[in-house]
């Protein structure tokens, strides 16, 4: 395994450069900024190479210890695809940060940001349950620090709440992992997944609930997502964009890798988990609650950034509903929506960031008559909004289409769930269209506003990608179909690739 085409580089290189940034900083602050950009650029190109040169599924073994014993990184279709998306969005946000981050704290920000991206790609790549915890901690700590960034006081409040709740989450996760470790003696995901049914059902359910609740904090499901509104509004826009873009992907991946592969019963049209209560149904319940609460509380917000925070929480709920349906179509819709959401939501946050910096302000009333003041930003904002609503010709349409198709196909309780979700998305349509309507109002005469060039690049790229996905869904569709295949078929998709010799139980 020569050093160069080893997937571990995806985690190693950002970490390496993260800690060497202070050295570069000594030479010149400017260099530090460009180094972050270059490392994430490397990450993006390398994952692009893996994805498009179809280099997966491969496995990277640490120190030649075979999987059940040593740690391993497994890059299946899901991991390759998600890593690519994470690093691409990370790259675009880094470009935005070139402009957004002031001279003074470039170093501190770049260190944290690189650690954050490394941790996120780590979660997605790792094949070891404990490694997952470690990378979750890395992303967690860097995101608390990032959330506290920025001049405003509310950033500190938001970061503190995020710290408290997600530390509870990670402890719960750790307790769940230890319980399983005591029973099965191994930490490798594939091993546990294969031998999960040997554990006593009561203990298995208890461990499952602990893990799921731990991961639910990060994945913003209902009882655990108290921190979301304050952290997103408090953090500077670059950070909230990366939180809603990158952290969201890794969290959802972690939640459903555990729920579907580790605890999942293989076979049967719809994935359900071992143990007394079906964890997938539990997640579905939480997810629907999140959607409804997220949408309704977003309705009466006056501050656009807070509204975007609630809407991203609601969208995460929708994605979780998609995954929790359990059939290939549902997971396909979930992944597709996950990608669409991270693209659109990070773009919206970046636009709000630019607007605030240029002096337009965050409240809905400041958005009045924006069309006359700055057509580019208004157009991109409406493209992002329409994609979130699932209007045709934009990315969101296809993913919402498949989620509803899957849930109706499953029938039974899911008809009721999707009915609630559709009602909630009508509410969502209202508050998004309200902003768009305000923007197109032309009865207000306000000075013209110029968009700075550097942040305009990522916003433009994201907008073009939304419309491109809208017109040619195959771009994202093919990869999410393969990913859905891997997640729903636990045995054939994941375990046999990691440990070929294991006998199915």
């Amino acid at each position, binding site marked *: 395994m020569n050093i160069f085409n080893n997937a571990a580089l995806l985690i190693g290189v950002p970490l390496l450069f993260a800690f060497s940034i202070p050295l570069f900083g000594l030479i010149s602050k400017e260099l530090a900024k460009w180094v972050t950009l270059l490392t994430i650029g490397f990450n993006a190109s390398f994952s692009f190479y893996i994805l498009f040169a179809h280099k997966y599924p491969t496995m990277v073994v640490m120190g030649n210890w075979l999987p059940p014993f040593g740690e391993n990184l497994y890059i299946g279709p899901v991991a390759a695809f998600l890593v690519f998306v994470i690093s691409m969005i990370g790259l675009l946000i880094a470009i935005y940060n070139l402009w957004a981050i002031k001279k003074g704290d470039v170093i501190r920000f770049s260190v944290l940001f690189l650690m954050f991206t490394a941790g996120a790609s780590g979660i997605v790549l790792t094949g070891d349950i404990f490694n997952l915890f470690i990378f979750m901690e890395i992303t967690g700590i860097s995101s608390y620090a990032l959330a506290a960034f920025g001049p405003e006081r509310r950033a500190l409040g938001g970061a503190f709440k995020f710290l*408290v*709740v997600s530390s509870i989450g990670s402890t719960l996760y750790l307790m769940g992992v230890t319980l399983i470790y005591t029973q099965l003696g191994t930490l490798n995901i594939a091993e546990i997944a294969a031998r999960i049914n040997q554990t006593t059902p009561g203990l298995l*359910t208890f461990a499952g609930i602990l893990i799921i609740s731990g991961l639910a904090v990060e994945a913003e499901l209902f009882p655990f997502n108290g921190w979301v509104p304050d952290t997103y509004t408090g953090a500077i826009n670059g950070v909230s964009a990366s939180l809603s873009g990158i952290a969201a992907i890794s969290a959802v991946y972690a939640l459903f890798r555990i729920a579907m592969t580790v605890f999942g019963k293989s076979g049967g049209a719809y994935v359900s988990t071992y143990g007394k*209560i079906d964890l997938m149904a539990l997640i579905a319940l939480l997810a629907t609650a999140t959607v409804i609460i997220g949408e309704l509380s977003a309705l009466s917000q006056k501050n656009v950034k807070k509204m975007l925070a609630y809407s991203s929480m609601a969208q995460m709920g929708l994605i979780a509903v998609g995954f929790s349906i359990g059939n290939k179509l549902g997971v396909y819709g979930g992944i597709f929506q996950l990608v669409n959401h991270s693209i659109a939501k990070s773009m919206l946050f970046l636009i709000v960031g630019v607007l605030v910096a240029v002096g337009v302000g965050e409240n809905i009333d400041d958005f009045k008559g924006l069309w006359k003041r700055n057509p580019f930003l208004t157009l991109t904002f409406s493209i992002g909004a329409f994609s979130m609503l699932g209007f045709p010709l934009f990315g969101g349409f296809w993913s919402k289409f498949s989620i509803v198709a899957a849930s109706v196909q499953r029938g039974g309780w899911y008809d009721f769930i999707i009915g609630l979700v559709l009602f909630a998305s009508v509410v969502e349509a209202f508050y998004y269209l309200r902003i768009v309507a305000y923007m197109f109002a032309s009865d207000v005469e306000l000075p013209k506003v110029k968009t700075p060039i550097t942040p305009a690049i990522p916003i433009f790229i994201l907008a073009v990608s939304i419309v491109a996905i809208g017109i040619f869904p195959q771009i994202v569709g093919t990869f999410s179909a393969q990913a859905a295949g891997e997640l729903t078929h636990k045995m054939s998709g994941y375990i046999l690739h990691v440990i070929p010799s294991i006998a199915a139980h």
Partner: protein
Amino acid sequence: MNSNIIWLVFTPLIGSAIAAILYRVKFLDRLVTFSTFAITLLLLFSVHVGQSYTFNLNFMGKIIPLSWNVTHLSIFMLYISVAFGTLLTFYSLMDKSRMKGFLLLLILAANNWIFTTNDMVGFFFAWELMGWASIVSVLGGRDENSSRHAALYYAMMSIAGSYSMFFGVFTLWKLTGSLSISTNVAYLSSIVGMHPWWVLGIVSLFFVTFMIKAGIFPFHTWVPMAYAYAPDTFTPFLSGVMSKYGIYGMLLFLPISLMEKGMPAAFGLPWVNYIFMWIGVTTAVVGTVLAFFQDDVKKLFAYSSFSNLGYIVAAISLFSSVGVTAGIYHAFNHLLFKGALFITLAAVISRTGTSKMSEMGGLWRKMPVTFFTFFIGIASAAGIPPFNGFGSKWLIYQAMIKQHLPFATVMLFLASTGAFMYLFKAFHSVFLGQRSARYDNVKEVPVVGQIVEYLLMFAMIFFGVQPGYILKPIGAIVSSMGLKPLPTMANGYVTGMFSNVYVPLISWSLAISFTVGFILFFISAKHKYVSQSDNYTAGQIPEEWNLTPETYQFSWKFYEPIEGIFAPFFRIKIDGFFRGLANWTAATSSAIKEIFVSNAQIYAFFAVAGLIIFVIAGWVA
């Protein structure tokens, strides 16, 4: 397998892309819109019934066939909508109302797609595309906040409608496994005998969407606001063509009711059709009654549009050969005369700058061509013989009477005489009566507008006198839907069940008697023209009595006496239900907002409490 259907859909998309780029230059934008409409019309000539095309989209991990096929109904609808669209965009070349061309072209693409598609995915995609494009174009209306409010109200209704169709599409997909409309409708009609309630449930999911888009009785509350506050050149398209999408949708699902033998019948109709007929009739009456007391002229015609749609629905729901023919024929007539009325209104509003009837008046001297088009428009809207509105109204009555429905016929007559009343009110308040000093230098519509108005006048008279040109294609449609078409005679005939009318004869007798009248008029003593203020004021001298044309014009509270009769009906507010729903959501949203009280202890408590509940659940289960 011929690809010109696909060109029908893609030319408008390309056109709209070009128009979007050029939106800065107002005239170029409208020129591109008009030329795309014209090209689509030319393309239409190459599309024939029976052509079909399938395109495989690998999506959702498997191959989804997007199929198009062209039926009689779709050709008919395509011709009328694209032809009217071309006329409208030709008119809007010179109109200054803020209508964005690329949105109209997006709607045209969706329009071509809806009418030709045979699969649910394509239908839904086009329906949503047309939905949001029309929402954004309604935003561009003249006065800002009311058009924003109207656009949001319309957005909510149409999105809720499309989500209910979303649900219907996938329940059908689950049942039949295929997404093509024809197989699903055939499947539904096959199982309608066994368990009618199940079929009713699915079909009502679709019919809710179609009723919202067409603006039928329970879901009509968005219609007046959206039509009144949309940009003036968009309202003709909105009210003429887009309300017909709902009707087209209903026609797609009608063959089912053909098979409803199992259903208990009332008055010889399956009870579902009977209820639907009553919904149509109530829409017609409610529309007419509300139209009496409007002051905004576009709102008045909005109510008149949805009352005419009530006629169409009432006729279609009878599902007899006369009924369906009458329904489609009235859909065409309504498109023609309502389009003409709204175009002339756009001309008047662009000249006078206001759409309030109490501020207008006496424009007939200043805008003669618009005046005549408007006159022929309201004459044909009232169903007066030589013009095109008569044929379909006459057929609708024949259908209702043949179905032995006494109360419904009486209500429809009320609606049609009521129509005559509010049409005259609009005609008088806008064109006749005293002209205020403000409009002394109002000029006639520029030449482009006049050409369009002449064309519209000619169309209304031509299709009135020669209804055969429309009745023959409708006959083909009706027979393609499995009903016995009406016997079609020469082009001039409108053949009904009880008797038939040879319209050219009427126009000949009218022409002769007009000449006789005018001869008598000219041989008798000379008359001299006087100004508008020289009329009998019971001896009072106008100057002393500071009489101004505005105060002397009678158009405020035109039908005030009969308000008393309809007052009890106004108390039951239909949109109370929707307003109540909106308030409830707003209330719950502010209640739920309280959950996120911003301090960490509560969130931590939430997390732990959630965990404990789940653990107990796990332990108990």
